[in-house]
């Protein structure tokens, strides 16, 4: 298990303080944050390239913040990979095994498995200058894993790759993780990457941890406006009025004159400022003549289709409510979109499912 408590780093150009993190053994953990938020600095501090002012780092119960990088058993794959250009692929791969003074014969079958999973059998004699971008990534991952580190650190492993190579490396990371269960800490600014690969995610913005949770928790229940905005979430509206529903188990939230009936959550109190987040995937456009479920009847709004566009995997529809002129972004699966027969200006009714709401402190 990896544990970081109160880590404080101060450099000439950047600083952050009191950073905490816990990663379970075998977990694929993402440190997610915007570019320039200091994520790489955290990684480099865990590797041992920066000495912290304060704080402690434990790797498998051993305190390591005072140890040099070579004593930490943390392998590091930087964004530029840094494959050693004067060593061929095989020499690159076994560098860590040799440097740690381990017996190569003890690692033969493990490295053989890694080579076969990463499909680089034919590349072992080549020098890095003769490898493609995807091949370099695979070799760098293999080099980092070869000596069985206690923690594998990846800095933006999918940034700057062509979509096809990106997909290939994503799959490879999944396979490597499921096959060998290494503990991985990966830095990224891309939520989609994290969503596909992470067991858990730490969202790090403005030098502070904003939220830690599973990918579903982060995506469906962002803890703050900052997190929601960073994730690029649409349909975020400031709540202008807040009242309890007569049955006392729901809030009636006013936004631009529209009233939303939202399930009550214990943390939320009247009088505080809140934002209402409506998940675009959970908004339904109702088809005329079709019966509507009882649970949907609380939040039905009339309006018209303002615009729509095909986004490949789904269709993005802009809906404007008749009352309050509130603009919603709605994501509709392609098959549903075809059945709806929508056009610009078409009058429709939308229904919001219970799952579509999330209330965030303002």
């Amino acid at each position, binding site marked *: 298990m990896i544990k970081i408590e109160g880590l404080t780093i101060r450099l000439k150009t950047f600083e952050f303080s009191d950073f905490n993190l816990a990663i379970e053994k075998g977990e694929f953990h993402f440190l997610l944050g915007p570019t320039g938020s200091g994520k790489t600095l955290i990684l*480099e501090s865990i*590797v*041992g*390239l920066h000495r912290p002012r304060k704080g402690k780092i434990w790797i498998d119960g051993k305190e390591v913040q005072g140890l*040099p*990088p*070579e004593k*930490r*058993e*943390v*392998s*590091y*794959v*930087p964004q*530029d990979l*840094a494959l*050693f*250009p*004067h060593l061929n692929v095989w020499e690159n791969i076994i*560098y*860590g095994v040799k*440097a*740690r*003074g381990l017996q190569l014969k003890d690692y033969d079958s493990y490295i053989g498995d890694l080579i076969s999973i990463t499909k680089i059998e034919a590349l072992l004699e080549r*020098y*890095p*200058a*003769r490898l493609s971008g995807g091949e370099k990534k695979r070799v760098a991952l293999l*080099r*980092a894993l070869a*000596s069985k580190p206690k923690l594998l*650190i990846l800095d933006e492993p999918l940034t700057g790759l062509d979509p096809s190579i990106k997909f290939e490396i994503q799959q490879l990371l999944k396979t490597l993780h499921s096959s060998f269960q290494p503990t991985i800490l990966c830095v990224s600014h891309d939520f989609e990457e994290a969503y596909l690969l992470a067991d858990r995610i730490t969202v790090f913005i403005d030098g502070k941890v904003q939220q830690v949770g599973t990918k579903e928790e982060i995506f469906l229940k962002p803890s703050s406006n900052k997190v929601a905005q960073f994730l690029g979430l649409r349909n975020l509206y400031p709540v202008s009025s807040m009242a309890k529903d007569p049955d006392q188990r729901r809030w009636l939230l006013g936004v631009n004159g529209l009233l939303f009936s939202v399930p009550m959550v214990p943390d939320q109190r009247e009088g505080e400022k809140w934002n209402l987040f409506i998940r675009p995937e959970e908004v339904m456009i109702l088809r005329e003549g079709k019966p509507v479920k009882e649970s949907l009847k609380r939040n039905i709004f009339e309006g018209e289709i303002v615009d729509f566009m095909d986004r490949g995997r789904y269709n993005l529809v802009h809906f404007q409510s008749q009352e309050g002129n509130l603009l919603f972004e709605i994501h509709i699966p392609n098959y549903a979109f075809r059945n709806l027969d929508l056009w610009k200006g078409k009058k429709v009714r939308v229904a919001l499912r219970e799952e579509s709401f999330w209330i965030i402190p303002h």
Partner: protein
Amino acid sequence: MGFRHTLIGVALFIFLFYFGLILSLFYFMGGKGFWHAWVNPYTLYSIRLSLVAATIATFLAIFIALPSAYALSRFEFIGKNVVDTILEIPMILSPIALGAAFLIFFNTPMGKLIQEKGIYFVFEIPGVILAQFATVAGLATRLMKASLDEISPRYEAVARSLGSSPWKTFYRITLPLSYKGLLASGILCWAKAVGEFGATVTLAGAMPGKTETMPIAIFTALASANIEKAVILIFILLLIGIGTLYSVRFIGKGYRYD
């Protein structure tokens, strides 16, 4: 005349300027005096002394310059800027002033102690090596730092994370990646040491058969109107210079790991 032709014309003029200068040396080549000067033991001694002293001075300079250059390239420390500036002094200070500074130093109590209890430098062969070392050590550090700056510290960071100690990382990663630049720096420094005159003549004097290096021998040959000897030595220095430039270019060519 167009822009392109004007600039090429200027470049050709510079070439002809130096080429004409070299060509003029041939006027004094050949003849009995010329061959006599060739086999003169003092001429051969000055050639040998220059090459040997420059080699020792260069090795000493590299021994000091490589760790200094690495420190300046990789680490932040108090006084780094001052150290960096001081290293450039031999490059901007007149070599005669540098030699004079050594003469003055060896007349201080500490300088006298070093000479009495250690090695005699003033008007001695070690003085030749010291003068050449002082002239090239700063340059060697500067050139080697430039070579090391080109190697991303990321390689070292990754090697360390893979379990390599700092020394092993330097030996197995930094050195092989920068050896071309370091070798070229060494060759350039050696050539500069061979051609060093001002500091050497001031500190070690111009004693034929003792401290007379090639550049000093050219000076004394001209002073005694021995043009043939001067021409021979100028040619040798010229060959060393051209050889150096070509070897540096050759080292820089190609990429070994393709």
